[in-house]
């Protein structure tokens, strides 16, 4: 049995298709990274997995329980960390955790000791009496995660848990995910940071415009694009002046320009790089910096979509 299984999941809002035929799965005890840019349909997919939205088509299951046919059983096995911090600001961290524990049916001494454990995990034992409203963004996010762990779910879904926080809290959260996973929890980790997906995930599903455009282990995904290398360039002029010329060069698999930065995906940097310089001087454009990067998930995304992951 798969811990998470998503088959041909669809969701439309009116005429707009936010999720189109998404399929992926996670084995019990693994971290599955769901990587995609803004608006890819990650949160919409998660909403269907957590029973907030009814799919327009397809199905998904958590620990073998279909989210459309047996949502209550699916919810019991699932902890959800929403993208936006969803806590009561006028209650303390501990009161919040106790409340959410009760909402999963925990009671009494068992609840209290579990709250202690979770406070330890998220590193807020000292601050448990303070109102969540007075916490920093990073601390709020940690409580936000803690609230999903109380009932020791088999599967935890985290929707961009590190957005907009300080590096220290971010590190803490990433370590938490690894720790929970080592204890046997299956984690679906949603992010648009490819480094996070690379560091944490056993398998990665890349989403774009509602579709899962790639699925596999980190290494398998990198291999998919062969020996391609990423070249980052900055110019002293508009990229448009030279972009078409570069695109025509043999060995350039993809090229994208945003904010004066050009990212090119090439088969063999040794062969292609001189040609890029040639074309630039013909177009009267000076290259002011060059960076060569070994293939990574960013490169994969660029390869698949012709666009950079971060926009």
């Amino acid at each position, binding site marked *: 049995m798969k811990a998470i299984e998503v088959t041909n999941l669809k969701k439309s809002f009116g005429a707009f298709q936010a999720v189109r035929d998404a399929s992926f799965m996670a084995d019990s005890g693994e971290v599955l990274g769901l990587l995609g840019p803004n608006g890819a349909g990650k949160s919409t997919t998660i*909403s269907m997995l*957590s*029973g*907030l*939205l009814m799919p327009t088509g397809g199905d998904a299951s958590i620990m073998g329980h279909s989210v459309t046919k047996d949502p*209550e059983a699916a*919810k*019991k096995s*699932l902890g*959800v960390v*929403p993208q*936006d*911090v*969803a*806590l*009561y*600001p*006028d*209650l303390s961290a501990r*009161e919040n955790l106790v*409340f*959410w524990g*009760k*909402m*999963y*049916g925990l009671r009494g001494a068992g609840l209290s000791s579990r709250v202690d454990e979770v406070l330890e995990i998220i590193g807020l034992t000292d601050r448990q009496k303070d109102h969540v409203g007075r916490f920093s963004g990073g601390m709020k996010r940690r409580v936000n995660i803690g*609230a999903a762990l109380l009932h020791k779910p088999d599967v935890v879904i985290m929707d961009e848990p590190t957005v907009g926080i300080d590096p220290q809290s971010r590190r803490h959260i990433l370590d938490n995910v690894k720790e929970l996973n080592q204890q046997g929890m299956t984690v679906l980790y949603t992010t648009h940071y490819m480094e996070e997906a690379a560091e944490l995930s056993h398998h990665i599903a890349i989403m774009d415009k509602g579709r899962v455009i790639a699925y596999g282990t980190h290494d398998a995904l990198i291999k998919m694009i062969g020996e391609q290398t990423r070249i980052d360039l900055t110019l002293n002029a508009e990229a448009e002046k030279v972009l078409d010329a570069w695109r025509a060069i043999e060995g350039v698999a993809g090229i994208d320009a945003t904010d004066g930065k050009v990212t090119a995906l090439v088969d063999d940097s040794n062969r292609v790089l001189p040609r890029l310089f040639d074309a630039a001087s013909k177009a009267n454009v000076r290259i002011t910096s060059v960076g060569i990067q070994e293939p990574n998930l960013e490169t994969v995304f660029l390869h698949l979509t012709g666009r950079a992951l971060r926009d």
Partner: protein
Amino acid sequence: MIFDLALKDLLQMVRDKRSLLFIVAMPIIFTLFMGFAYRGGSQNDAEADHRIPLALVDPQPDSRLSKMLFTRLDSSDSIRIVPMNEDEAMNAFRKGEVAGVLVIPAGFSEQAEAGKAAQLNLIAEASSSEGQSLYQLLRVPISQLMSAVEVARLSADVQSNPDEYIPSVELAWSKWNENSKISLVRVEQAVAKGSESDWTGGNPYNQASPGILVQFAIFGLTTSAQILVQERKTRTLQRLMTTVMRPWEIVAGHLLAMFGLVFLQTVILVVFGQFALGVDYLREPLGTLLVSVALGLWVASMGLLIGVFARTDDQVILYSMVAMFLFSALGGTWFPLEAAGGAFAAIGRAMPSAWAMTGYQDILIRGLGLDSVWLAAGCLLLYALGFFGLAVWRFKELEV
């Protein structure tokens, strides 16, 4: 878990110090204030002179019949005699300072006692109710006076002794006075009852206490409905939906919290009314409990409704205020609907707040029992059900 959700809501409400002010302190202050206002009002009423002012024009006030008539009229509870000369009297009449002018013509006494036709003139607005009353009120004593004169003249004639006239007329008049007092007093009391009856049943707080109670029960919604709006804004409602709580349990939990708050507030105000203000809620404890529970359920379902419709805290306050003013003013929590009358009272009487007032006042003022309270409580519960249905329908439509 429903209970846990309700407890969480209540904890949040209690955390909000302003809410305590609204829920307990303000209603108590308002009750006292309104009670003073009503009491002041009814005291003024008692002191005010409700007798109909009548100008008396009498050029010979010392004549026997004049004196007799004056004494009789002056002792009346219904007429206030103001002696004037003719010009003054007509002036006062035109200005509306007096409701009528009674003119006793010169030589009236002598002529009447001599058996000649003599007439008094009443100048009054025949179409006004005061004019009508004056005529009715004067007709009796004047005809009695004339008949006393007739009787005394007859008696003197029969005995052929003119000296008998004076004792006879006085005797006859005094008989009339004794007899008429009984009937007159009865009439006057009937008039008096209409204007001076005490609709508060002797204690002005019988209106103020339940009135403020109902009004502030609605006002308390600002706090409890805000909890629900916050829950939507902070997306904790959405998170609740990902737990094993079913949607109906979430609705029920919030309803329970709102009911708890309103009911607690009601209990505090009932206890305060009973022991501090002598408003006898406990005359029929089960009846009071029944009305209070029904009131709480109605108000709570209205809170739920506001909570699912409002988008911001400000909107919650706005909706609660509108609800409070609408239901308070129309439902007779500020003044009894009987005092308003007409279409206003008819519409008002249908309001749930009016049913709550009816329920409480059946117990407090009208002294009715449990069976009469059932109707009011039943109507409140129907309203509660309607509001609740609307709230649940809207809750399902909410964007999650």
